[in-house]
């Protein structure tokens, strides 16, 4: 059933992506808005403050919000253009149903909801409750994330709920839980200001978190040394004091060698290690053979540079280590994270002013969304779904019997595999475009085609939704009240600037309605988003991610509150671990051995080149939103394959020549961008595009055994020049490629 009803091209014609631009002199009424709404950007984890201008229930423009402390008005291009979504021709305005041969035709809410409920019942009756899975996403607010978690377990009664945070920072989450017993960036970003050394590992900050650049530059103005670890010479690396051009998939070797250097040269904080940590000996035993020479051999970084980095890190009095997807998207993503944490713990620079560590959460609510239970193994407050005490507490909050609470389910990519195996037959998704964002997209597409029933809630008809039987028009971030938690752990207020247009509804009301129709009205009786948040506070109480003391009023008055915040008179916790009482069972920070392992796929004669993927500044994740905003598309119209001139010469590839890049899973044709700013043995393709322009046709479904994150950042590929120069980028229609 879930094959496309008509050709993808025909769907694109009606539902986009179409590029939206402001009219020549801006939208009507921009200069005299009905209201100016102080809210936040809908995109990355920085959650920059921004003001939206509203005229006649339409978002018509933006204004910088100078008072919000993190960004003080600063924005990236995505933030500046984010206002073009509510007022967009592709915006879904009515429920749609799939009609074979006709495409998607409008239907009523009643008909579509009835269909959904009937299909859920049919599939669950026939194949069991867990045969109906749910996929969610962390562009959703805390309230919606919490609600989805409760909905899936209580109303849908399935264990198979997972979310797109699985592609984001789960490796960091797992690593942080192992080391600290809690999953949050340890510091807020103002601690960068006087850090003497900053390590940025696998984080293309200047393109993926542009507004964070300000804080790093600020530290450098105070004399901080910047060390950037990345296979590419990214804008942040260009001016850095040290750029370690690591070979993709070898990060843990680098951190291991640095740790050994610190140990060998006694650049350790013995007091901290002895009194507040455990596992040090096993950890340094694991790296005892990791000499600089060995590390140079493995990582491809000159040993002098590794040494210089270790010296800088070892001698600093204050420091901040930041990492992101570059080290996390690996089959050993958790090991890489632990390798970083080991460097932090060895020098004892945590829990003190200007001594920081943290992952930079990628998605808008990547932090808050990963705490409140729409992960397959988790319950609100970052509780463990397999821990009997945790289960009991949440079952009580939800008013259900603990034994009716489903257990641990499958992770996002495993759900796709289970669909292939026939274990999962039905799917509901919200805020997730797996066809573009999951690895091995041909395999994902085949899975979608096997589904018996698929219902998608979204505000635009994304690529995955083309396989749906029913599409329910939900809400944009600016169309509903709520809160998110930024990458710093700051809980902030998202405002409803406008109500959903046409017959579209808020995501919350859709989920509540579904719950009601599934017979669970009394457990889903919320008057508004604040009521959901208040239940979330109770549900998170006593958990590691404790929101109990946070209220809407406090968030508004204080411009955000940092969790944990157990009571209403608690000031919140901008900096963790000042008391050195870690949340692990023994109360200590844990060193964890992180020995170097090979990536899931290594280069060989057939596939001799390493492929890595990433992002560009003007696009966001799977592009459902940003591939519909004209100027953002025009800024980077199509994915290019970045190739070093020496490698290009070997293959006789010219600038903008079309190159077929293939892996064991698929192939794609991309224009070459020949640049010296990438390693000679590696090529890079950004992943925001769909169909034949999707980099994820190539990436592998190898998962980290602990975090289940896919290995987007390294695989083996081959290159085949096509001896044809690509047409000008400005003519590209990659934004809508099928």
């Amino acid at each position, binding site marked *: 059933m879930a094959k496309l009803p008509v050709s993808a091209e025909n769907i694109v014609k009606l539902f986009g992506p179409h590029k939206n631009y402001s009219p020549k002199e801006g939208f009507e009424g921009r200069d005299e808005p009905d209201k100016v709404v102080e809210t936040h950007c809908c995109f990355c984890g920085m959650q920059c403050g921004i003001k939206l201008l509203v005229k006649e229930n339409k978002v018509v423009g933006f204004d*910088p919000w100078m008072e919000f402390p993190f*960004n003080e008005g600063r924005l990236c*291009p995505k933030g500046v253009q984010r206002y073009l979504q509510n007022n967009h021709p592709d915006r879904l305005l009515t429920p749609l149903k799939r009609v074979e041969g006709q495409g998607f035709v409008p239907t009523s809410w009643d008909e579509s909801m009835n269909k959904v409920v009937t299909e859920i019942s049919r599939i669950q009756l026939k194949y069991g409750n867990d045969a109906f899975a749910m996929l969610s996403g962390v562009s959703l607010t805390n309230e919606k994330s919490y609600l989805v978690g409760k909905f899936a377990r209580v109303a849908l009664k399935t264990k198979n709920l997972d979310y797109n945070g699985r592609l984001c920072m789960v490796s960091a989450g797992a690593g942080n839980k192992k080391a600290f017993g809690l999953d949050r960036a340890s510091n807020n970003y103002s601690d960068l200001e006087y850090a003497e050394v900053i390590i940025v590992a696998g984080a293309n900050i200047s393109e993926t978190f*542009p507004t964070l650049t300000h804080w790093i*530059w600020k530290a450098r103005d105070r004399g901080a040394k910047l060390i950037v670890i990345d296979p590419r*010479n*990214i*804008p942040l690396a260009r001016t850095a004091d040290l750029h370690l051009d690591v070979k993709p998939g070898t990060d843990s070797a680098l951190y291991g060698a640095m740790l050994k250097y610190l140990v060998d040269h006694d650049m350790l904080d013995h007091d901290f290690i002895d009194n507040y940590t455990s596992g040090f000996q096993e950890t340094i035993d694991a790296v005892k053979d990791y000499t600089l020479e060995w590390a140079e051999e493995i990582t491809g970084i000159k040993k002098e540079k590794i040494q210089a980095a270790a010296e800088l890190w070892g001698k600093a009095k204050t420091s901040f280590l930041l990492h992101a997807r570059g080290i996390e998207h690996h089959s050993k993503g958790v090991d890489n994270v632990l390798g970083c944490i080991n460097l932090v713990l060895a020098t004892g620079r945590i829990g003190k002013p200007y001594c920081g560590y943290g992952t930079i959460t990628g998605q808008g609510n990547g932090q808050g969304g990963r705490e409140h239970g729409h992960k397959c193994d988790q319950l609100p407050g970052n509780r463990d779904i397999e821990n009997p005490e945790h289960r009991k507490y949440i079952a009580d909050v939800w008013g259900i019997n603990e034994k009716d609470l489903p257990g641990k389910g499958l992770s996002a990519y495993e759900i796709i595999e289970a669909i292939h195996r026939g274990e999962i037959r039905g799917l509901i998704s919200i805020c997730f475009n797996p066809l573009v964002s999951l690895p091995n997209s041909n395999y994902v597409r085949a899975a979608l085609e096997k589904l018996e029933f698929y219902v998608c809630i979204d505000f635009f008809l994304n690529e995955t939704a083309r396989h749906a039987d029913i599409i329910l028009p939900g809400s944009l971030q600016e169309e509903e009240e709520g809160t998110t938690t930024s990458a710093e752990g700051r809980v902030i207020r998202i405002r409803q600037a406008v109500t959903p247009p046409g017959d579209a509804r808020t995501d919350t009301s859709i989920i509540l309605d579904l719950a009601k129709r599934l017979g669970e009205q009394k457990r889903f009786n919320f008057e508004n988003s604040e009521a959901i948040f208040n239940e979330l506070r109770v549900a998170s109480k006593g958990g590691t991610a404790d929101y109990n003391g946070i209220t809407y009023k406090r968030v508004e008055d204080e411009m955000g509150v940092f969790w944990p915040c157990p009571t209403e008179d608690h000031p919140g916790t901008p900096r963790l671990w000042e008391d050195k009482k870690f949340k692990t069972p023994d109360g200590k920070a844990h060193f964890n051995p992180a020995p170097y392992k090979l990536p899931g796929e290594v280069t060989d004669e057939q596939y001799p080149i390493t492929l890595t993927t990433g992002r560009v500044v003007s696009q966001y994740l799977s592009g459902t939103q940003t591939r519909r905003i004209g100027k953002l598309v025009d800024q980077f119209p199509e994915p290019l394959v970045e190739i070093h001139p020496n490698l290009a010469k070997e293959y006789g590839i010219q600038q903008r020549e079309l190159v077929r890049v293939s892996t064991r899973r698929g192939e794609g044709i991309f224009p070459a961008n*020949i640049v010296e700013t990438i390693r000679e043995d590696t090529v890079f393709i950004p992943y925001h595009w769909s169909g034949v322009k999707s980099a994820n046709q190539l990436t592998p479904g190898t998962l980290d055994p602990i975090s289940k994150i896919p290995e987007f950042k390294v695989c083996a590929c081959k290159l085949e020049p096509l001896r044809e120069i690509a047409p000008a980028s400005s003519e590209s229609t990659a934004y809508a490629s099928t």
Partner: protein
Amino acid sequence: MNYTNFNRHEEFFVDMQRCIGCKACEMACAECETNGQETMIHVNYVDRATTVQTTVQVCMHCEDPVCANVCPADAISQDEFGIVHTANTERCIGCSNCVMACPFGVPKKEESFDLMMKCTMCYDRTSVGKKPMCATVCPSGALFYGTKEEIEEMRPNSTAVNSFIFGKEVVNTKVNIMMPKGSKELRIF
């Protein structure tokens, strides 16, 4: 003109080594009321084949603007605050003299309008005491608008310079570029 609130103490400071090429400024500039969805600021790769270096260029608002001098239509004027205004729409004949003669490569010919357009330092905002859009959103501090005291405090290792040497020509501008401490000028060649 509505210049009652133009803040004479605030100045524009540019440091293109901080630029990360994100183009937030370009997007924001197009939101400025004076230039209707056209962007007047320029961000471009310096030489992408070898480096990710980008540069960002606002109008430098020269003391003796070459653009106005070479304009055959008297379309470019300079006001009492030293702002060099964009081409007067009824005068500009679209000849591009200013585009090609500006030593900083700032004016832009809008071919479909047959009109030159350029940065007016966000006159709609600065004339009422606000900061220009580009400098407000710039996430990297490559563009900063504020007082001399503020920049000196923020960037203790730099000096603001507004004198540019092109061979024998010295061009003095209203806009500053941040240079190594103690610099007096920037020599282009």
